């Protein structure tokens, strides 16, 4: 597989995992008073600020021969799946952060209105909360996917830089520069920059629209 194809595969798989884990988590953090919620949130956000080498070190320990996964026969080091795990871990905080904000901005009165009309909690979530939060969530998904696509440091540590197997676009650029293949590097750098620019443009658009469609409360809570 070419670096671009590998990056595409890793990004799609990582983003799927990020959405599966991140959306419920963002909702829980925004809407439920979890015991230790602040602690959980802080732990999830850590990869945003930790050096990639530290994230890589944890993953190396977690996925390595002495780690819990190897004990059950799952070996992810130096595979594209390992790269996807690294990408998912660094991308997840971005979805959780903007997802939490998106859920928190949904007017609770609208959810209550749906409950009064006899909707189940699941219906409230899928037919009221999720549609109202969708712009912010989508922005979070794009940001997380872009971060997953650009992941480099932790990936280098857990997946190495094996051409055709684990050498994603960022790693291929690093390899090309080290080898003095500047023409290759120029092309890949340009491609990556354009993709990153377009993602951010999309995020800006989604965020602007989400402000515009923010609903007005229709049923004030409590009252005289």
């Amino acid at each position, binding site marked *: *597989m070419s670096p671009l194809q590998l990056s595409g595969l890793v990004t799609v*798989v990582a983003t*799927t*995992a990020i959405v*599966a*884990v991140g959306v419920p*988590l963002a909702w829980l953090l925004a809407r439920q008073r979890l015991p230790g919620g602040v602690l959980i949130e802080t732990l999830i956000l850590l990869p945003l600020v930790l050096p990639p080498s530290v994230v890589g070190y*944890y993953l*190396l320990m*977690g996925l*390595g*021969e002495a780690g*819990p*996964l*190897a004990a*059950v026969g*799952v*070996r*992810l*080091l*130096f*595979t*594209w*799946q390992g790269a*996807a*795990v690294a990408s*998912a*871990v660094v991308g997840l905080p971005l979805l959780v952060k903007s997802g939490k904000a998106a859920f928190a901005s949904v007017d609770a009165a609208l959810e209550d209105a749906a409950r009064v009309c006899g909707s189940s909690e699941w219906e409230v979530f899928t037919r009221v909360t999720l549609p109202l939060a969708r712009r912010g969530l989508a922005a979070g998904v794009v940001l997380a996917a872009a971060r997953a696509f650009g992941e480099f440091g932790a990936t280098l540590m857990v997946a*190495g*830089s*094996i*051409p*055709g*197997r684990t*050498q994603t676009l960022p790693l291929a650029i690093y*390899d090309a*520069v*080290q*080898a*003095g293949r500047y023409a290759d590097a120029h092309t890949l750098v340009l491609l990556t920059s354009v993709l990153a620019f377009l993602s951010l443009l999309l995020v800006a658009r989604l965020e602007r629209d989400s402000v515009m469609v923010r609903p007005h409360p229709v049923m004030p809570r409590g009252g005289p």
Partner: protein
Amino acid sequence: MRALIPVAALLVGCGSNTSGDAHLLVAAASDLSGVMPALAAAFEAAHGVPVVATMGSSGQLAQQILQGAPVDVFLSADAGSVDQLEARGRLEPGTRAVYAIGSLVLLAGRISEPPETLGAVAETAYARVALANPDHAPYGAAARQALEAAGILEAVAGRLVIAENVRQTVQFAETRSVDVAIAALSLMDSTRHRWTVVPAGAHEPLAQTAAVIAGRPQTASARAFVGFLTGEQGREILARHRFTLP
């Protein structure tokens, strides 16, 4: 992170078909980055097995192999990194072979003429001197030994720029980020570089050692690769890239 484990576990199943191809994965010291394409092409033509190379410093590659990287053949730039793997029982017995002897060069960077001798690197004009990380890169270790033997290690200590591997020292010189780089002769290209060879006696010989990694599905092809490398065709290609042959 724990929440990702089931997701990750699900992915393992679909990964098996991609890793089951017939490629031979060679972990090659970064001083081989110039010669690997030629070696891979010649080996594939002769044996019909495609070769994929992952490059790095020998010490880093040895660590990756110990951590379980799916490497079939290890081409180190020294003997020490191979010793490490042998001590941990990670080699196919009897497959180690010295395939080349490496040489150090002083490669001109921002200052367009290379120093004529290693001792000249002590001159303050060479404000930034690149070498590979001596802790895990054999060429870096050899460079440090040579600087020490020339009695100038302390004089230049504050001016050293540590590269991750020897290939990166060349990149530092090419981009003129350093004044001079202590690099590998095998990476020199007469159309782009100007260099002086460091006499071999200045450091322990870089006895570049190959070995087949144990427990891999393709040990027969891996043995064939080491045979090819130390055979007539491999030696001819290595010599063309300025390696000294054992």
